[in-house]
């Protein structure tokens, strides 16, 4: 009921959605994080995601388990994160959860993406026309 993946291949969003389908789940909430054409006003050319794979997979699963603990009505949870080189519009992350009722689907999905961004060992480098930056590295 928890499905986690970290992949260097393009994420198939429709396939990810199918993994959380459940006859008892009337509500599916999905968050998709895609590469934007700018960051803090600066045009972005491409991104590179680097992961500490074993820890990232372990932490992703922990975050999903924490969500299930907090919202026991959760039926299915899928989190897929991309790594490697991404271009504008590419999908970097998909979080999908299914629940019997809708309010909990929003809350659980929001919790998972927020917590993922705080703890999962993945690093993003943004490349601009004239340089690059490891996101969030410096104050």
């Amino acid at each position, binding site marked *: 009921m928890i499905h986690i993946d970290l992949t260097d291949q393009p994420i198939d969003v429709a396939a990810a959605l199918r993994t959380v389908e459940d006859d008892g789940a009337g509500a599916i909430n999905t968050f998709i994080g895609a590469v934007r054409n700018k960051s803090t006003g600066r045009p972005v050319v491409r991104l590179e995601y*680097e992961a*500490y794979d074993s820890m990232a997979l372990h932490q992703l699963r922990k975050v999903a388990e924490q969500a299930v603990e907090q919202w026991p009505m959760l039926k299915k949870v899928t989190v897929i994160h991309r790594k490697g080189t991404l271009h504008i519009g590419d999908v970097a992350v998909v979080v999908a959860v299914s629940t019997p009722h809708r309010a909990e689907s929003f809350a659980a999905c929001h919790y998972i993406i927020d917590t993922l961004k705080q703890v*999962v*060992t*993945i*690093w993003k480098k943004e490349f601009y026309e004239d340089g690059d930056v490891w996101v*969030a*590295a410096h104050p």
Partner: protein
Amino acid sequence: MNLKIALFGIAREIVGQSSLEVSAPEGQSVQALLAGLREQYPALGRLSSLAVAVNNEYAEDGVTLSERDEIALIPPVSGG
């Protein structure tokens, strides 16, 4: 003892390699390891945060390290 430290992201770039061997006294703490690395690589001290992971879990300052541990330096994460 010799500790092998895996490096990622900007920490990897600062050190210039993807892992580091550090010789340390038995019972070395996370805090002492970090202090030593920050002394040797001052740019590490300028990051927003710097954590140590032991066996895929974040480790508090007081945790003691052993040669059998899988140790990694964790600069500010930015997934999603």
